[in-house]
């Protein structure tokens, strides 16, 4: 089963005629993802890798009424417009791959999505992948089977490249993946760890989740609060990158967060502390997550 995407996912790619958009549409088709249509204003009537292109999302939906998911692959200043176009046409899941979306635009579209009850993942997401069922976005590149074997561990990460690296390390250790996704490292992420953990909690095919956090913001702290409040009860293993930054000269931002430290929160060490206090296992070095996952599953098996 997994979360968010599966064999029932029907995709429209907004920005399909762009260099990256068409490349990724092709990768998705090769994986077996059902990409039914593309949208690029002004390029209606073209065909990209066998996928028909429309001028508007409304036209795409009229021709392919089963579309339920949009992948946004448009330039940064158009991302807000594209996402709102999708939501206002009734699309319930929008995944924004575009990086460097202005924060005022993200705030607007997040506010709009909440009002409409739509789920947006991103901006700066690398996509969502449920092994063997659906690859949405560039996640896993041209050869996702290499890093993402089917299995029962969920992955949610701020970083795109570390989503795949985390999956790779887990699969090397004999685990498999239920669903992996990256939520992006922007100050406003339209979906956060705390938004997604309840979906993994409800997913019968996920036994444990690995989360990858970064400096800045409060989303790791929110996840810790959720766990503490009993909102996520499955084993959770975390890695928080950027601990070194605490020891670096102030005023330098590392990683893509560029986030403002908020009210005494946001530093990696505080995130680690908050998560550990909530009972989450936190790896000191990234590749140690596999040992912690194994430990957590063994302990749960004993408890059950």
């Amino acid at each position: 089963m997994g979360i968010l995407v599966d064999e029932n996912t029907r995709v429209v790619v907004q920005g399909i005629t762009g260099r990256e958009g068409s490349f990724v549409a092709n990768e998705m088709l090769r994986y077996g993802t059902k990409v039914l249509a593309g949208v690029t204003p002004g390029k209606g009537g073209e065909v990209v890798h066998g996928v028909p292109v429309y001028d508007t999302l409304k036209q795409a939906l009229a021709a392919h009424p089963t579309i339920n998911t949009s992948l946004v692959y448009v330039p940064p200043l158009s991302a807000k417009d594209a996402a709102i176009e999708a939501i206002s046409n009734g699309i319930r899941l929008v995944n924004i791959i575009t990086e460097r979306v202005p924060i005022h635009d993200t705030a607007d579209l997040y506010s709009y999505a909440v009002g409409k009850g739509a789920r947006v993942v991103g901006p700066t997401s690398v996509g969502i992948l449920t092994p063997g069922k659906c690859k949405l976005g560039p996640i896993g590149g041209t050869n996702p089977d290499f890093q993402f074997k089917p299995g029962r561990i969920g992955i949610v990460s701020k970083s795109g490249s570390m989503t795949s690296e985390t999956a790779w390390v887990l699969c090397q250790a004999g685990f498999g993946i239920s669903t992996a996704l990256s939520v992006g490292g922007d100050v406003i992420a339209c979906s956060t760890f705390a938004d997604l953990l309840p979906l993994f909690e409800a997913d019968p095919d996920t036994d444990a989740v690995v989360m990858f956090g970064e400096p800045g913001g409060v989303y790791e702290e929110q996840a810790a609060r959720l766990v503490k409040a009993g909102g996520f009860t499955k084993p959770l293993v975390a890695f928080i990158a950027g601990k070194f930054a605490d020891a670096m000269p102030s005023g330098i931002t590392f990683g893509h967060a560029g986030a403002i430290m908020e009210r005494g929160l946001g530093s990696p060490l505080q995130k680690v502390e908050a998560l550990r206090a909530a009972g989450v296992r936190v790896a000191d070095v990234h590749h140690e997550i596999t040992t912690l996952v194994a430990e957590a599953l063994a302990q749960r098996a004993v408890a059950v």
Partner: protein
Amino acid sequence: MNLYEYEGKSLFKKYGIRVPEGIFINAPQNAGNIEAFVEEVGEVAVKAQVLSGKRGKAGGVRFCKTAEGAELAVELLLHATIHGSESVGVLVEQRLAIVGEYYLSLTFDGWHRAPVVILSQQGGMEVEELTQRHPEKTVIRPIDSIFGLPEWKAREIAAEAGFREERMRKMADLMVRAYRCFRENDIRLLEINPVIETPKVNFFAADAVVILDDDAMTRHRDFNYPPRGGLGRPLTERELQAKLIDQNDYRGVAGKYIELDGDIAMMSAGGGGSITNMDALISYGGRPANYTEYGGNPPAEKVEKLTRVVLSKPELTACWHVGAVANNTRVDITMEGFIAGLRAIRPPFPIVVRRGGPGWEEARAALERAREELHLDMTIFGPEMPMTESAKVVLQKSEEYKSKLRGLNC
């Protein structure tokens, strides 16, 4: 991009936010009108224009009652170094009579995932201190980004923060103007600390902290702010060279380079991967010579330029070229750039590569050929080696190289 106070204030003026009368001076030959200015306005504050905070405590602000005093202060502060950054000029401002000091800022907040306004009766201190020490005097309210900040809402916030009557009305007006400025200029942080109240109950922005959203610069072609470091210290020569890499070339990113004082050169790919690997290296006892993160499928030339910058730092003992198994970055192309850089520099110290992703097998073969051709001590790992585990190999190699050097010196 952070704005200097004088830039922030001139932006404020366009929105009808009151700021003290002032003149900006960036060179001694432009300082001629100080006398007339002091004569006109009376006591002045002379303020060094630097981006670091806590400028006052570091001696960057002088109050002067006479033209001579002001001229001396201008001379002193014109190119003063405050907390490691050189002043770009001075702002000479009228010193206003003050009956109250308040705090106002607009920023984004992860709890609400929205813009927030922070308003407090308690001005002058840092916001962290404010919210910790005087939470009851500090109002933090989210703003619906689509709807904006209407006047009625601004009045509610001002009233909640304890402003009454005329003060309430005027503070609400200031907030509405500040929000328009924040929104229309794609500002990530707009802070006025303190807002000062004069005896006639007018509010003035006594300081201005403005951080523009770099991601929105392309829709503000009219902005004309000169480039600046923002590291809290001047850029090093190599940092300046690195900055040029991404100029006028938007394919991928390879120009983020921050010099540190260690001896292991980092060529790291991906934002998340780069910080993960820095952690790993440091936790095993290594000292990175720099921070970098390249990604987004940059062309080979960009990676070559970055390689030359990273490897040109003196007294390196190893280079770690490390990245996650890439999703879409063409590893064969980026490694081609790395090899071109190696060919130019021919490093005597050991190199450890760990990478994977599209084109990795071709990249590995090219690296092996380069190793032979250039007689390099290069260890090459693909995805079979966990990324962070290869940190241990780098450290071992670096130690070997150091003892070899020590042997030569004996």
